[in-house]
């Protein structure tokens, strides 16, 4: 009983840390779009990526924002040769579909202090871009 009590106290901070990224993502999301994602299209996403993200981002070069190839499943702030905000580097976010959906809805709410303020309110466009990024895996 005593051991259980000690363990439960000890695990509280650990549990808080583990759920940190997802809870931040969920609390920052103005909608629950991730629960009912619209049908996604990587080909539409490619064109949208060019038009909506291409002002600052490329797949293979750091520009105003970091390069995106391989972003899916990557830890936020992890491209070694890009200068991130301290806030994003410390965010402990992993770029899942849900995290990216949240991020694109309101990045400054998800990670206050980030350098990215671009918001994409259209859920379909977000889903398409995320599905496109999912296909742009890291080069071997």
């Amino acid at each position, binding site marked *: 009983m005593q051991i259980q009590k000690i363990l439960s106290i000890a695990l509280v901070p650990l549990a808080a840390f583990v759920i940190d990224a997802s809870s931040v993502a969920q609390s920052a999301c103005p909608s629950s779009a991730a629960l009912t994602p619209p049908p996604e299209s990587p080909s539409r996403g490619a064109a949208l990526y060019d038009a*909506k*993200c291409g002002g600052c981002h490329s797949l293979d070069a750091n520009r105003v924002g970091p390069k995106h190839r391989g972003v899916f499943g990557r830890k936020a702030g992890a491209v070694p040769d890009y200068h991130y905000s301290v806030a994003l580097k410390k965010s402990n976010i992993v770029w899942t579909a849900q995290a990216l959906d949240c991020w694109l809805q309101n990045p400054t709410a998800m990670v206050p202090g980030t350098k990215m*303020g671009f918001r994409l309110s259209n859920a379909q466009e977000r889903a398409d871009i995320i599905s496109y990024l999912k296909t742009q895996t890291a080069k071997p």
Partner: protein
Amino acid sequence: MIETIGLKSRRSILAGTATTLSAAGALALLGKPAFAAGAATKGANTAQDVSLLNAALGLEDEGIAAYQIGAQSKLLTPDVLKVAVAFQDHHKQHREDLIAAITRLGGKPVEPKKLGEYATSLNAASLKDQTGVLRLALKLERGATNAYLGIISSLGGSDLYVLAARTASDEAFHAAILGNVLGEPIPQKAPMFG
């Protein structure tokens, strides 16, 4: 610091292309401050605003560099070069507007990278003809339009909304001209940006 097209030639070119000047550029020529942001922003997260405006400044620096790379490529005809120089001047005005806003908010404007760094990140070595240069410019202008429209709701004051919206309008103007030169069809659906 980026080397830019010679002032003398730029002025003579601008004299013949006055109709392409943006509202911000026209105000600047009249000697009026094109933007007086910062002081009136109340209750905003100024550090966040500075961070977002610095990202926009990075976007403008890249745009200035892209037109410089195009101008130095010797791939542009004289007429197209004139337009490129005029557009670059607009981006320089945007740059000044952003620096003024960042400074008034108490922030430090980011410095531009070296031209060679922009050339690498924009893959300038792949540009083989005028069409390629214009396609790159169109992609950047279109992206910049959407970027400015996309940050408006993240900014902390109406004066900053105006700055972003006004700059987005200039970028959209550039994109429309470039799309027309490249023979792109008129978009069938509105809104075209945002």
